[in-house]
């Protein structure tokens, strides 16, 4: 890592889905990797996520979505981030995400996609790369 500053990550559960095992274990893994992790808790509106991300001055937002609604949620959140001038925050998403949806997510501006089953190492490396610009 080129930077010595700790990366601040908001792991957020948008919407109504309550399956939080994945989000929670990713929080623990990122923390063990030396990042500062904020967990949003369940049932967050996108406004709440934007607010927490702003207040906590995070570098990365990691959404955890299991319901299949990742495309509309990411699209809307990216638009809101742009509107609020939060373009410098990287948006990543993980959860039950079919591989065929990854190109579309990337195209709309999601920086990294971590479908269920990828390793913690892969997630940590992916997030580190965003912050050091080694995409």
């Amino acid at each position, binding site marked *: 890592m080129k930077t010595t500053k700790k990366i601040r990550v908001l792991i957020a559960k948008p919407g109504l889905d309550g399956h*939080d095992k994945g989000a929670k274990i990713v929080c623990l893994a990122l923390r063990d990797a030396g990042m500062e992790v904020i967990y949003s808790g*369940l049932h967050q509106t996108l406004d709440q996520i934007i607010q927490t991300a702003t207040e906590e001055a995070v570098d990365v937002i990691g959404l955890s979505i299991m*319901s*299949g609604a990742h495309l509309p949620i990411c699209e809307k959140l990216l638009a809101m981030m742009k509107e609020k001038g939060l373009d410098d925050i990287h948006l990543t998403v993980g959860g*039950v995400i*079919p*591989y065929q949806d990854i190109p579309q997510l990337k195209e709309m501006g999601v920086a990294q996609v971590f*479908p269920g*089953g990828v*390793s913690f190492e892969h997630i940590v490396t992916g997030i580190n790369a965003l912050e050091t610009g080694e995409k």
Partner: protein
Amino acid sequence: MGVAKYIKDEKGAIQEVTYQSGIKVKSSYGPEDLEKAGFEYDKDLGQPGEYPFTRSLHPLSYRSRAWTTRQYTGFGTPAETNERFKLMIKNGQNGLNVAFDLPTQMGYDSDHPLAQGEVGRVGMAIDSLKDFETAFAGIPLDKIGSGLTINAVATIMMAMYQATAEKFGYSKNQISTTPQNDILKEMIGRGAWIFPVEHGVRLVGDSIEYAVKELPRSNPVSLCGYHIRESGATPAQEIAYAFSIAKDYIANVTQRGIKPEDFVGRFSFNFNVYGNLWEQIAKFRAARKLWAIMLKEEYGVTDKKKLFLRGLFGGGGSGLTKEQPENNIMRSAYYALGAALSGAQTTALCSFDEAYTIPTPRSALLSLRTLEMLMDEVGLRDTVDPLAGSYFIETLTLEMEEKILEEMKDVEKWGGMTKAISSGFIQRKISAQAYKYEKGLQSGEYKKVGLNQSTEDGEAEKTDVELHEYNEEWAEKSKANLKELKRTRNDQEVSQSLAALEKAARGSDNVMPHLVKCCHAYATVGEMAGVFREVFGEWNEPDFY
């Protein structure tokens, strides 16, 4: 998630096996192991269908009746779901297990801003009785029982089911429904909670009290160790935590002056079958026995049938992999074998494509066929509890009992389950375990075919299985139906019934009869849940760090 832990020597021979519940397994077992464990035939095993029911609930078990199959079903609008229900019934399924979409589970109507993108996605969208009438049209509600996978608003769906049956001309004495209705487990895992703990438990209590008095064939609560296990609990914790939750519900209902004898027979369970085969079998045998002993000795229940641990033992989704998805067909078949060897009364499997999305008709039918093969083709109906008397299985069952009791004692130390959940203690414990297992899986400490062994190049990128697709039109259709309903229903009846509901919710009257009236008046789920939100408020999840 991985299963047992194996220590091997340099030649690959197994030196040590430890199950998730913490039990070490020997290379072989004999009579001395049973003796050491204090095994007594009458006390620990007994005849099939006799107390403590280690072997089975009924003397002839599958000989008299094969298991009930209940695949979890529901998506889109009620019309799509009705079609799928009929397909499953036509193909031999004999019970329903209804999936609701997230807005319905969280008490929002299809036109609520928070419902956007979720209507009909993970289950069917229900706004009012009109939708239930469509979903259950042509289903013989006096013959087919329905599990309703709903928790925070289970009271509303139970009322909806009764109102639908009444509309169709059945009496409430004829229908059988099992709402999941286990709010404490939602707070540990799965997360579809709304109201604060004490109000959530009160609603569970209301539904039990109502079922005891008004719905003789219905089972108001299905205690779900299943989701607790999916969230990272060990098999022993799965059973222990479900029992500890049951104790808190029992306490709520007995406070109303109802004796345990009069309602515990209505409890059912939903447990998970994934992981090590032997550990699962021992778990179910131990659970049947401990439940019966607990009800008899702690709660003074005497009627034999009320001591039954009845329930669905189903294949767990956590065991399935995204990688090499067809492997899940075989994997689920082994889980089903475990359920059959455990004497599961009711069962269901996650279908092989569920690591991606909800199942297609083809994959749902494959699950059903898998279950049929065990009963009708390979001989699982031949004799009751075929593993009884095995030195290994009987020893393991006794060891599992000990582990379950230890975990229950732990919960008591924390002040009971409600307290352990309110403080977040149990959620933190389970998350830490889940993290540890996941790391073990990623490091290869636990073996998983297709995931960390026997993997194929480029596997991660390819999905050549056909997947269920979400249709945006379902949301539009639901919203249009809702608009039409609001235009045509009798507003005065709606507001009067909702006002009566609010009064009951604020006081101590049982909310159920009021909910049935609201449903008949075509009040919406969002309106009824809105009353509860207003009166009870919402739960603040404890921090998990």
